[in-house]
């Protein structure tokens, strides 16, 4: 159940994940700039690498303002929740053989549980701000994330059927012969969309939607509390990319290179994909978003589950 070096893995994963998440701020801005034929941040340090550091210093130096009309304890706890839930999810990710903090037997469910708890952060932030735009953002987040969670879990059940286990390590081992992207292509697409919606990335960033809700749930946030939401979002993207790698692309498996390198390569590929999607696609209307979730994605996920189960029953009894 427990990895050989849990403390070392804990510290290592924490450091790597946090540096990836903050580095993503720079990567995303550079990539977006690349795809918009610009340069992006290239002034602070070599290639603008220290931009993150400068941003952090700026955020820390800003006034940490809590509006007098806000619900103070909830207002403060909200940004912490997103960081905690996402970081907890990293505890069950098998990065490479032996590099895992806790090899839980229900790791997949744990991941889903943590991502469903992440909703609280957004909803409470929107509610505690006592601002109509924030409230609308919070409401949108609650509805969106609840709806997309439903088929996020369902889209993964096909994989659970194939691997016969909720344990992520077992799922990776089950992909020795063939990556699950091949038998579960529909599941992959559904999970990708759900992952985008769960992390509130750009095509589905309706809870913040600068152009209509003036940053939605974090309108009233400033300083490092805002920074927590910011980093939390990037942590979420990293988490979803790592999950896609584990669930559909064989985790650490790959020829020649050491396992951890393969894992990082795959994860970064999906991070790039997330940013590319952000660079390309416009935001849907909210009713379209909900209609897709319930009228398209959910039936597709159920059909995927049904077909997978039927095929397994018919051929692999």
């Amino acid at each position, binding site marked *: 159940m427990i990895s050989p070096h849990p403390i070392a893995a804990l510290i290592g994963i924490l450091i790597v994940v946090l540096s990836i998440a903050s580095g993503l701020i720079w990567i995303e801005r550079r990539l977006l700039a*690349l*795809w918009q*034929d*610009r*340069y992006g941040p290239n002034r602070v340090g070599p290639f603008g690498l220290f931009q993150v550091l400068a941003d952090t210093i700026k955020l820390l130096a800003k006034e940490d303002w809590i509006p007098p009309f806000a619900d103070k304890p909830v207002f403060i706890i909200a940004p912490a929740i997103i960081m905690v839930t996402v970081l907890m999810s990293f505890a069950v990710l098998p990065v490479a053989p032996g590099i895992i903090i806790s090899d839980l037997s229900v790791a997949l469910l744990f991941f889903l549980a943590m991502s469903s708890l992440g909703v609280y952060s957004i909803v409470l932030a929107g509610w505690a701000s006592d601002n109509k735009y924030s409230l609308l953002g919070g409401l949108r987040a609650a509805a969106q994330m609840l709806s997309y969670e439903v088929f996020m879990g369902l889209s993964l059940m096909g994989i659970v059927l194939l691997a016969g286990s909720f344990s992520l390590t077992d799922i990776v081992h089950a992909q020795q012969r063939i990556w699950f992207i091949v038998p579960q292509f529909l599941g992959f697409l559904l999970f990708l969309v759900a992952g985008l919606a769960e992390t509130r990335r750009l095509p589905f960033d309706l809870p913040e939607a600068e152009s209509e809700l003036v940053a939605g749930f974090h309108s009233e946030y400033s300083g490092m509390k805002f920074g927590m939401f910011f980093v939390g979002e990037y942590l979420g993207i990293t988490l979803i990319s790592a999950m896609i790698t584990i669930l559909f692309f064989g985790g650490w498996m790959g020829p020649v290179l050491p396992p951890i390198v393969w894992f990082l390569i795959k994860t970064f590929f999906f991070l790039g994909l997330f940013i*590319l999607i952000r660079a*390309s*696609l416009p935001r849907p209307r909210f009713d379209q978003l909900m209609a897709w979730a319930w009228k398209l994605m959910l039936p597709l996920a159920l059909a995927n589950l049904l077909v997978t189960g039927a095929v397994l029953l018919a051929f692999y009894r």
Partner: protein
Amino acid sequence: MFSIVRTLWDVFLHSFQRRVTRQYPEQPAYLPPRWRGRIVLSRDPDGGERCVACYLCAIACPVDCIALQATEDSNGRRYPEFFRINFSRCIFCGYCEDACPTYAIQLTPDFEMSEYKRQNLVYEKEDLLISGTGKYPGYNFWRVAGVQIDGKDKGQSEREEPPTDLRQLLP
């Protein structure tokens, strides 16, 4: 569905396109000669100040950022005792240049005048005066104006005829 994939691909292809950003401080921007930038006070070819402190620029200025005080030197030439432009107010409209009868005040193609302190944007006469003639080389107001100064009597200007003797009846 297909259109989404197509969009993603098209955006991805932009990775191989030329970037349109100009790396500004290293690659300076081209400014046309008539660019309305930092205001200067120019001099005559002989080195004297062109400004005759007529206040037309201060009157023309829509934001009242020009302040000056006229005085006269021992040769009878008018000149500004002080000449002050507050560039934190200036909108670089160029009306002062249009109003100037002596081509003294000119706008130049330069905009790099940031300061950390707002006070430093108030330029005094010694900051504004340049040693050259600016856009109008060879023009010398005091040589063409029919004003009497030391060393140049009435009728001695360029293309100026001697003053008419009003007591004489002959044409």
